[in-house]
Structures are given as C-alpha cells and as structure tokens.
C-alpha cells in the first residue's frame, strides 16, 4: 500500500497541475451565482474542448478512440488536480463521457465509434440518457417505449422521464422494447438518437429545487436509422449494464462538503463562542468527516481493483449508498448549526444559500443512479451471496405481465 505518487505519477501530476494552472482559471465558475442552463452548458463545452486540446479528455480511453490511453490512476490524479478548481462539469458532459462513450466503445461498430467518440471528447456532442419511464425506474427492464422495425429504420413511440439536460443536449442514449413476446430483460434494444429528430418533444419538469434540468421526453413516431442501433437486437439490457456500471463508479466523487459545513458552524455565533463549541455537534460532524474520508479511501481501493483489471461489481454500489445518506444527514446538520438564520439567511450569505440547494439535491442522490434500496439488494445478493428477491415476473413474456 502506498498513498504517495510513484515517480511517474508525481511527474504526471506536476504536468497536469502546471497545465491546469495555465488553462483552468478562465473557465472557473463564479461563486454563489447560478448560471442559466444554456450558459452553463456553453461553458461546459468550452472547458471540454480545452481539455481535449490539452490531451486530457478521456484519459483512460485508448488513443484509437481519441483518448489519452492513460491509466486509471492517471485519471484519478488528473481529477484530483482538476477538482481544485470549480469548473463546469455537469451531467451534460459526464453522461457523454461516462455513459455514452463506454457503451459505444464496447457495443458499437467501428463506424459508430468514429462518428461519436472524438466529437464527444471535444465537447462538440453532448448527451442525455433516455432510460427511465413513468413505470420503469428501479425496475428499469419494465420499460414500455416500443421500437418497431420498418426497413432500414426503427419507429419509436413512448415516454421517457428524468432525462437530465435533454432540453439542450445533441444526442440521447435510448433503450426501447423491440420484442414484447419474450421476458422483459430479453426484448430490449439500444439506440443513439439525435435529439432534434422529428417526433421528439422535451418538456421540462419543475423540480423541488426550483430548477428544471430534468425532463419528460415524449417520442412519437420517431424514426431512427438502423445504423444508430448500438449492439444487436435484444442486446439492450447488456448495454444498460455497461452504462450503469459507469454510473456507479462515477458517483460519489464530490467536493469536500463536510469541511464547508464545519465552517458554517464555526462562523455561527453562539453565546460567547460559536456553534462548533457544542460537543454534540462536534461529535456528529466529526463522524460525518470520518465517513467522508472513508468514502474517498474506499473509492481509491475500487480504483486499484479496476487498474488491475478486476471488476468491483456490486461493491461499486457501496460508494453511492454510503455517500448519499451521509451527505443528506450532514447538510441537514448545517441547518441545525446555523439555527433560525438557516431557514431565512441574508441574501448575500452564499454558503447558506448553496446549502439550501445542496440539501434539496441531496434527496435525489439517494434515488438517482440506483436507489438506496436497490443498491442494498445488490450488495446483499452479489457481495454477501444472499437470495434474490421473489419475482412475480420472472421468465414471463413481457406482453403476458
């Protein structure tokens, strides 16, 4: 075990750090200001282009795909250095890099890879995910959106939901049902679809945070060329698994939220001192900080596994399961530390206003990308070897459910 950089890693870190010092500052987002979606995305594309030009886009992707051909550890080192700046790296970029690219690289044809990989790395193509439906969330394979083949095209009808950034992205990764006569996991097929295709209507969902970056996406007689099918007919579930693995491994890598809340407590006057003089609060925040460190070190252990070619499997779900609840609890403590002033702060109290938004957002982190309960089942079944859930739909053709 060695948490220090090897000489090669140290050299890479120095190189990355110098490059970032030169290029990152003019892309840094202003503090305490919420940009509108189009402006944020414009900046996200610009930063991605900068990364590409600098040779830091897709660090672990092979050079043949336009990536750097680097190691998992190099990607970690770069992310650590990049994390020192507040840069525009929203879902509009990460869905492309973390979901669309892996699935195209693994299940796509050489032509598809040529068409999408480099353009995505450059920030020219942005992506949304068209997976969940009103009756297919945790039970994703229950999806109903139909794709029917007509010659060289597929005609798609249905409704998707929770499609982050679908209102502004260029392409979507889409999973559909192509054969309802077989059990539900078997009749799925995967596509990429251009978001300005006729028949696609994106309606923003008003979220509890006040933002509307999630959408409902309606597909009415949408024609997708067969050339945009990813993988074979019926291979859709395997494609979804590739995507979700990227989602699990990528989740939970967030900024040091506990330190920020410690600062809020320390800056809250209480009696002759401040809120952080309370033993009870110190105990809870120290526990949160210890858990935050553990999440970071645990993720590092998973990356060591991946760098050796091992598959962490359901272990990866532990990252988000631990992070999401802990984060929600910690952000809740910020309110208790600040007291009444937390529920109606001064308009210029950027730290507390950010906490308002983060606390609302924390609730969805426990649901998106594998709900807590789904992850617990996976850990119990695949890590601990406990029995699977009883399924009423097992082996039953989808159209007989």
């Amino acid at each position, binding site marked *: 075990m060695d948490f220090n950089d090897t000489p090669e890693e140290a050299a890479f870190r120095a190189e990355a750090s110098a490059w970032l010092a030169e290029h990152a500052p003019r892309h840094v987002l202003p503090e305490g200001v919420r940009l509108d979606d189009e402006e944020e995305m414009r900046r996200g594309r610009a930063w991605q282009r900068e990364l590409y030009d600098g040779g830091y886009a897709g660090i672990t992707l092979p050079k043949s795909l336009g990536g750097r051909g680097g190691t998992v550890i190099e990607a970690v080192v770069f992310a650590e250095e990049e994390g020192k700046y507040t840069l525009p790296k929203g879902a509009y970029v990460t869905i492309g890099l973390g979901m669309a690219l892996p699935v195209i690289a693994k299940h796509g044809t050489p032509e598809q890879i040529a068409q999408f990989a480099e353009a995505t790395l450059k920030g020219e193509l942005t992506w949304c995910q068209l997976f969940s439906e009103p009756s297919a969330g945790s039970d994703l394979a229950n999806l109903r959106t139909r794709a029917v083949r007509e010659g060289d095209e597929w005609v798609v009808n249905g409704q998707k939901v929770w499609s982050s950034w679908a209102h502004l992205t260029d392409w979507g990764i889409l999973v559909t049902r192509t054969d309802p006569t077989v059990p539900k996991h078997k009749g799925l097929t995967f596509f990429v679809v251009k978001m300005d295709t006729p028949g696609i209507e994106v309606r923003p969902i008003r979220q509890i945070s006040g933002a509307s970056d999630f959408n409902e996406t309606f597909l009415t007689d949408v024609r997708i060329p067969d050339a945009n099918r990813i993988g074979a007919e019926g291979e859709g579930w395997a494609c979804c698994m590739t995507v979700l693995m990227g989602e699990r491994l990528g989740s939970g890598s967030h900024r040091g939220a506990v330190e920020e809340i410690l600062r809020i407590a320390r800056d809250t006057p209480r009696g002759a001192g401040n809120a952080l003089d309370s033993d009870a609060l110190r105990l809870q925040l*120290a526990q949160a900080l*210890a858990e935050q460190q*553990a999440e970071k070190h645990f993720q590092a*252990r998973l990356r060591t596994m991946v760098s050796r070619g091992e598959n962490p499997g359901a272990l990866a779900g532990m990252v988000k399961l631990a992070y999401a609840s802990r984060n929600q609890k910690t952000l809740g403590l910020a309110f208790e530390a600040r007291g009444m002033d937390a529920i109606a702060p001064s308009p210029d109290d950027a730290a507390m206003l950010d906490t308002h938004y983060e606390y609302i957002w924390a609730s969805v982190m426990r649901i998106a990308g594998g709900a807590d309960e789904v992850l*617990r089942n996976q850990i119990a079944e695949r890590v*601990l070897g*406990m029995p699977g859930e009883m399924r009423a739909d097992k082996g039953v053709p989808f159209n007989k459910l």
Partner: protein
Amino acid sequence: MNFDLSDEQKMLAEQARGLLSERSTPDRLRELIDSGAEWDEPLWRELAELGFLGVIVPEAYGGLGLSELDLGVLSEELGRANAALPFFSSIVLAADLIRLAGSEAQKEKWLPRLASGETVATFAYCEGAAGWAGDAVQCAFDGAALSGAKRPVADGGIAGLAVVLARRGGVPALALVELDQPGVRREKLPSFDQLRAHYALRFDGAKAEPLGEGDATPIVAHLFDRAAVQAAFEAVGGSDACLHMARDYAMERQIFGRALSSFQAIKHKLADLAVAIEMGRSNAYYAGWAAGSAPEELPAAAAAARLTGLTAFEMGARENLQVHGGIGYTFEADCHFYYRRERTLAVSLESRQYWADRLLAHVPELDEEAA
C-alpha cells in the same frame, strides 16, 4: 498510488486467520470462560513462536521490524477471532510505549521479552471515572517509588510488567513497574468482557523507574493515535466476523417457509453493515499506512479510523445478535463474545468525543480566520 495490501500482507492475514480459526474456536472461548482462565496462554506461546508478537518490534530487539500496516493485518484477525490474548495491552500499547519513550537499556531489557511473549506487559493509564487526562492522574511517582491506584487495567492479572501513568514533579510522567513485588496489589474487577479481565492495581511505595522524562501527555497522545489504528483494525475484524456469522445463520434458518436471509429486512440490515465495515476498513488502511509513512497525517487518520471502526463494530455486534433472534441470547451461540468485546473496545483508549475533537483539531479549513 496503490490502495491495497501487499501479497505478503495478504499471506500474513491468511496465516493468522488459519491458525486462529483452528485454535481460538468459539468452543475454546467458552471453555476459557468456564474455567475462569484470563487468557489463552498456549495460543500466546504459539503466536510468539511464529514471531507474531514481535511484528512491529525492531529487529535489533528481537522483533521482525515490520510496519504498522502489518500489525494492523494481525489486529484485524485477532478481532475476527475475538481471541483471549493480551496482544493489545502488551504489544500495541506497552511494547510500543517502551520503544517510543524508553532508554536504550530499557529497550534492550524489555522489548525482546515482550516480543518473545516471555513477559506480558500492560499500560495502566486510567484512574477510574476520572480517566487519564491532566489532574485525573493522582498516582504519585518520585522517580524511584510509586504510590496510588490505577483502574481498570486490562490484563492486569497476567501482566508481569506495567507502564504506569503517574504524577511526578507536578506533571503526568511514565513509570516502569515490575508487578510481582510486595509493593503491588492486584484486585480483579467485575469485567464486562469475559475474555479480557480488568484489574485494579494498587501501589504502595512500589519500586519503579522512569520511562522517559518530563510531561508524558504528548507521548501518550501519540501512542493513543498509533493504538487507535490497531483498535480500528480489531473492530473491523470483529464486525466482519459478526457479519458473516449473521449471514450464515440467516442462510440456514428457515422461517415462514423460506430462508430468513431472503427477507429484505435482513438483507438490507446486512448490506448496511457490509458498507460500514468497508468504510471502517478503508480508513484503517489509510491510517495504518499513515502511521508508518506519513506521520503528519496520523492524528486525523487515526481519529477517522477510530470513529468509523467503532460504528462498524457497534452495528455488527448488535445486529448479529438481533438476526440470531432468541438463540443469540444463549451462551451456546457465539454472538455474546463480540457483544461484550465491542463495548470494551468502544470505551478503552478514550471516548468518541476525544476522537471527534482530535479529528476536528486537524481540519485545515478551520485554521483559517473566521468569516
């Protein structure tokens, strides 16, 4: 960067686990409790033969001179087996303290004996409910003779040697005392952990020598940081044993016509426990590495490991018994060993509040000026 144990460390763990699972069986533990034995002496001798007691003792003093992480690997296995051994008292605390604070002559005299298991030592720091910090230390030491009482002292009945925290010249100081002498009386206390006996040690002008000079508070705090890492490994091992015991029982037990393990209430409970254990283990790994390779990181890393280790073991010890149902309340089931050991570990080596304060004292963001 590499965040995994080395192949040698994995082999060490395997070797220790193999031996302990064979020797320190639950039936053996029950036999020790029933016979009133305070430790598994034959097993101690066997570990000594294999060099395990000297893992972290420098080679010059008869040890193997390995790292804190190697010691952690052993601590995890001892925790898993819930072994009845004075390893924490004699090796993790006393031997380390002699190495940190002792003179050359003291190290030459005692470290080889501790590493070979010939002598068992303990660290007597606590004075009842008052604890060990500052004025709580009332035991008096004049550089040659020691008077006063320490309690509770783990393994105080089998130890031949103790490092005692005592007041000398107005500050807490360390005294090295051989316990088999007329000026020392030992009184066994009703110990919560039936496999780790605690004693009151009374000194009446006992012959003692200084271990190091001056105020011992910083060196004891440093020792506690180092020992907290080992306690975290021990807790992770204990909790992992609880997880597997609960899982195996739930897989076997049939209820309402199906396996107990097929109920989501049980699956989710154990999944949460598995996460808590991996979090505890991750912090323990980092702290074990920091103890040897990044001393400036140690206080915060040790505190974090201690806090997550406690959480994991607390959950494991309680929920394992719960999953077993009524059978878990019987002496014949194995849950109670861990249920008792967990509380003992939880309050030995200072409270959660101490570790919370120690962790927060090392947050760089709090050093900046208040806004």
